[in-house]
């Protein structure tokens, strides 16, 4: 097999509660401006919780109109419009369709897939039985509707599939994409993830799971690693990244915005929802070994940081176990305090935050970190942005089912 290749990041696209393009996302992060609010798109009057991180309402309709598409499903639509941003950023497309076919793979993550379409279909089935199921229901609700839709719309002819592993989905997808490019199975991959689930069914099941914050003040509800945290806050969104071989990126004069330096993954193999510090540590060590990066080389850890009681203590233990004394030199960022937990999209959106942090040499403040939990023995970025001292960042994602995925990200050119 040919020599492994360096993997460049040449395109970024993002939409979440704090921004609908890379620049507005970056600006909100550096300004310490969060986007958690009362939900506008969903009636939560019968639920315990009614807050979340919603994407600005005009963004998706305007983006679809520019791409000459009708809405199909919230997650698919979020994926399509952010994919357009990333592909344009990478210089692979220019403007509206029609597009020329090109050999780019599409490897995306999603936790719940076409949630809106599924909920609509369930409602129609409950009301009208089989007669309520439209002929195209199968392609509308299949879990790979997102990658298929993106591949077809932009005419990307490499492999297209989704990776599903709950909240690790897009990090596992990016890891797969990294390996495809690193080992020469693809030159260019559009990767990342999308989730959109503010509908009565999917928000309802999370409401009843009892892990969401009941803090009455939306702006203060998501408090990763804070002693006063009481659960996660959900957010919708999508993050898209173009990975390509460093040589190809340079040859075509693309702007290299960052590098994927390594990747590791593991399974807890212990409990369907409770995390395991041992399992997480295995993935972190594998990622660092893959990257050839020592713990002392890390400038920061971009945490999974869900703000649930269990996650933040467990993740602190695993970070401390892997980094040892170097944990004091690698402050922990918890971006979900800005836009909530975007489930399968979280790894992609937070990796974009990490890459922007590397690009500008600054880590955004952690919101609502007023009293760090003494059980979380890691060095946390505080209430102010701070300088990134070394340019490598480790990005953690952990999911129900016990799936752990960890990327090591580095600077571009």
């Amino acid at each position: 097999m040919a020599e492994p290749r360096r993997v460049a990041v040449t395109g970024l696209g993002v939409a979440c509660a704090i921004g609908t393009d890379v620049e507005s996302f970056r600006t909100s992060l550096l300004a310490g401006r969060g986007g958690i609010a009362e939900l506008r798109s969903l009636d939560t009057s019968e639920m315990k919780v009614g807050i979340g991180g919603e994407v600005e309402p005009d963004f998706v309709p305007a983006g679809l109109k520019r791409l000459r598409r009708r809405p199909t499903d919230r997650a698919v639509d979020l994926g399509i419009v952010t994919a357009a941003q990333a592909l344009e950023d990478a210089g692979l497309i220019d403007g509206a369709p029609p597009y020329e076919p090109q050999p780019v793979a599409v490897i995306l993550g999603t936790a719940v897939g076409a949630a809106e379409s599924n909920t609509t279909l369930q409602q129609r089935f409950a009301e009208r039985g089989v007669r309520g199921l439209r002929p195209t229901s199968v392609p509308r609700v299949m879990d790979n509707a997102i990658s298929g839709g993106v591949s077809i719309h932009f005419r990307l002819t490499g492999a297209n599939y989704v990776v599903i592993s709950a909240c690790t989905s897009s990090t596992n997808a990016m890891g797969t994409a990294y390996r495809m490019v690193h080992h020469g199975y693809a030159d260019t991959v559009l990767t990342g993830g999308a989730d959109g689930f503010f509908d009565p069914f999917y928000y309802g099941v999370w409401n009843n799971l009892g892990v969401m914050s009941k803090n009455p003040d939306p702006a203060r509800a998501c408090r990763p690693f804070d002693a006063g945290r009481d659960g996660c806050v959900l957010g919708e969104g999508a993050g898209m990244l173009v990975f390509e071989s460093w040589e190809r990126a340079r040859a075509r004069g693309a702007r290299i915005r960052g590098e994927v330096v390594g990747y590791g993954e593991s399974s807890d193999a212990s409990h369907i929802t409770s995390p395991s510090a041992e399992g997480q540590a295995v993935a972190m060590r594998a990622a660092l070994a893959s990257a050839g990066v020592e713990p002392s080389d890390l400038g920061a850890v971009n945490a999974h940081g869900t703000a649930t009681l269990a996650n933040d203590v467990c993740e602190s233990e695993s970070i401390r176990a892997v980094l040892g004394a170097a944990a004091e030199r690698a402050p922990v960022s918890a971006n979900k305090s800005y836009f909530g937990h975007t489930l399968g999209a979280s790894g992609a959106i937070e990796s974009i935050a990490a890459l922007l942090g590397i690009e500008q040499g600054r880590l955004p403040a952690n919101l609502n970190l007023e009293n760090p939990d003494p059980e979380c023995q890691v060095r946390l970025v505080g209430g102010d942005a701070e300088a990134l001292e070394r340019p490598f960042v480790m990005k953690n994602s952990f999911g129900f089912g016990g799936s752990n995925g960890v990327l090591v990200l580095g600077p571009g050119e």
Partner: protein
Amino acid sequence: MNLIGDSLSPMDAEGASEILARLRDVLRDSAVEEHDWDAVVGETPIESLGFDSLTILDVLYDVEEEFGIALDPKQVVKTRTVGEIIALLEQNGA
């Protein structure tokens, strides 16, 4: 406005106009691609609206829901223009 041909009487044309308005809504709701739906007329080719052999099945389904009549799928897949669907609807009592 002459919607589906020259052979319509004024009364037929009025009925076809109403059917066209309802059909435009059905087509828009089933479509993946965005179009200027107000510009859709009888002569508009169905293929130009982005429908294919799969997505036209949703149109058939939604047409039956909207107009409360069952159409023969074999006849629907033979239609090439919006006007031909309207003619089919009229033949079936819409």
